[in-house]
């Protein structure tokens, strides 16, 4: 018999969230200490700069249309540390509640029937960076993921927004153009998916993105959905993937290609390697810049510009 403080053993639901929830109106007078803990928000650019000034880091931008899997990639790279699938060691996160809030719809505690990632909204306070610190072979790296809605990239594609107006794009250490495997699996939607990616790459190039210091990649998401669609769909993607890869390499000769299945759901999919470890290794690969200088600690308005500091020099 377990050691309990009460006579009755409490029920334990499969997700552990049964009777333990605090009522929404629970009074908390003794918590008015004035010392707050973080909420489910991201980091601002100055906050991220503080982190980058202390240890090696990467600013990561997933560029893709809505529902292409941007948030899913970020949260699954985090969640893998909890489920034993990561080869890196979790070293911390200054946006832990934010990561948790975003992975929640993929957990049983959400009471959903299928895993899901909610639509990203642009934070009005510029808190659009998610942080994940990982350790590998004793070395720590801070990953700062841009948490930007697909609508922003739609605007770039349609020339409604210039890439130069998005500081995260010009500051990115790693820039990945995403293509949704679920859209590629259907002849009704695949050409639009490919066209989005091609036009996005072109608009970014017109706007001087990627910079010389940015490493780029073409990432297929939901590869399980594409695989399940069969040989013709795969053959179509292989042709288009080569074209898009060439387009990226025109800007970055070292541009890579990845196929990922962050959540393997499709029936009939034979996914032995979900590609996430390879993707993480690419994220951790050394960029071609020196670490950011420490962010200034003064409260002058110029220091609060919503722009990540540029590194001192490009090596």
């Amino acid at each position: 018999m377990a050691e309990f403080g009460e006579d009755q053993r409490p029920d334990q639901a499969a997700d552990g969230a049964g009777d333990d929830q605090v009522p929404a109106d629970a009074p908390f007078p003794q918590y008015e200490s004035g010392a707050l803990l973080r909420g489910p928000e991201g980091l601002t650019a100055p906050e991220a700069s503080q982190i980058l000034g202390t240890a090696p880091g990467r600013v990561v931008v997933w560029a893709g249309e809505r529902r292409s899997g941007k948030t899913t990639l970020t949260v699954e790279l985090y969640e893998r540390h909890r489920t034993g699938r990561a080869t890196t060691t979790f070293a911390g996160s200054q946006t832990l509640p934010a990561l948790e809030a975003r992975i929640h719809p993929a957990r049983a505690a959400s009471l959903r029937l299928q895993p899901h990632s909610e639509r990203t909204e642009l934070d009005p306070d510029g808190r659009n960076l998610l942080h994940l610190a990982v350790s590998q072979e004793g070395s720590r790296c801070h990953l700062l993921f841009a948490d930007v809605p697909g609508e922003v990239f739609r605007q770039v594609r349609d020339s409604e927004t210039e890439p130069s107006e998005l500081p995260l794009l010009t500051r990115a250490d790693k820039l990945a153009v995403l293509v949704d495997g679920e859209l590629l699996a259907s002849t009704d939607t695949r050409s639009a998916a490919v066209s989005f990616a091609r036009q996005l790459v072109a608009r970014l190039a017109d706007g001087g993105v990627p910079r010389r210091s940015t490493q780029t990649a073409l990432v297929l998401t939901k590869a399980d959905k594409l695989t399940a669609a069969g040989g013709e769909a795969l053959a179509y993607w292989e042709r288009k993937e080569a074209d898009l890869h060439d387009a990226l390499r025109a800007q970055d000769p070292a541009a890579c290609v990845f196929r990922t299945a962050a959540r393997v759901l499709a029936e009939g999919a034979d996914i032995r390697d979900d590609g996430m470890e390879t993707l993480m290794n690419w994220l951790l690969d050394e960029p071609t810049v020196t670490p950011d200088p420490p962010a200034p600690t003064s409260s002058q308005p110029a220091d609060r510009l919503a722009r990540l500091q540029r590194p001192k020099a490009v090596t």
Partner: protein
Amino acid sequence: MRVVMLGFRETGKSTYAVGLYGGLANAGFATLKLVGLLDAVGFLNEGLGRLAARQPILRTVDEQVEPIALTLRTDGGSEHELHIPDRSGEALRGTSYSRQWHRGLLDELLEARGLLLFVHPLQLRPGEPVETAQKIVQGPPPADDGDDVPRRWTPDLMPSDVQMVDILQEMVEAGVSTPIRVAVVVSAWDIVDGEEWDSPSSWLKERVALLAQFLEANADRFPSAAFGVSVQGSDFTADDATFREKDPWERTWAVDAAGDAVELAAPVSFLLSGSAPE
């Protein structure tokens, strides 16, 4: 040395405190001796009485927190004052949920030089993926439920390992100085399946993965050691005369991270070993 017992409710903090005191008061430990009392221990002796009668320890309510203050001598001869405010898990739970520090808990942590961090195998919120629930439901896979999230996210829904990492990180942000030693105590170790997990270390790496990794990666700020403890010693319902005939402090047992036998006081000894004598 001020030590804070940290853990969500019903994770075995009060039970461990009673078991520890029972061993100290009855000269049951080779590595740690009780030299003197700095505060009343009536509630600990009440707990010992309940253990002797094979009854569970009553849960600590926040308003009834009674501190433990003892003077201890290690087997190396050094003396330490040990102060443990046996804080109920409610303060920690409320802090995590409201995203505001419980005033008393934060004050204790700011003065703490060591943490006893409790986890209980039956109180873990594992944070299982949706697919786990799917496997339980028989029949064809359910249709997509669109964008609906029937239960919205709140901080108390974070899995147990995440909540513990969250609190450790927030402690540092709130000004708790590091390094601070952490003894991770897995309560009720007797109920853990010994065939599946042969040591607290392997159990933590699998069941409380994020905490285990965080402590490993941040060993400079949180030097830590893991222990599995059993204060009851066994199932209270077991009809074992030999077991019943033992004094409650003789029933207790503990293992270190590798699963090797140690004294119940070992987690405290670990914390004291990094502290200067007082």
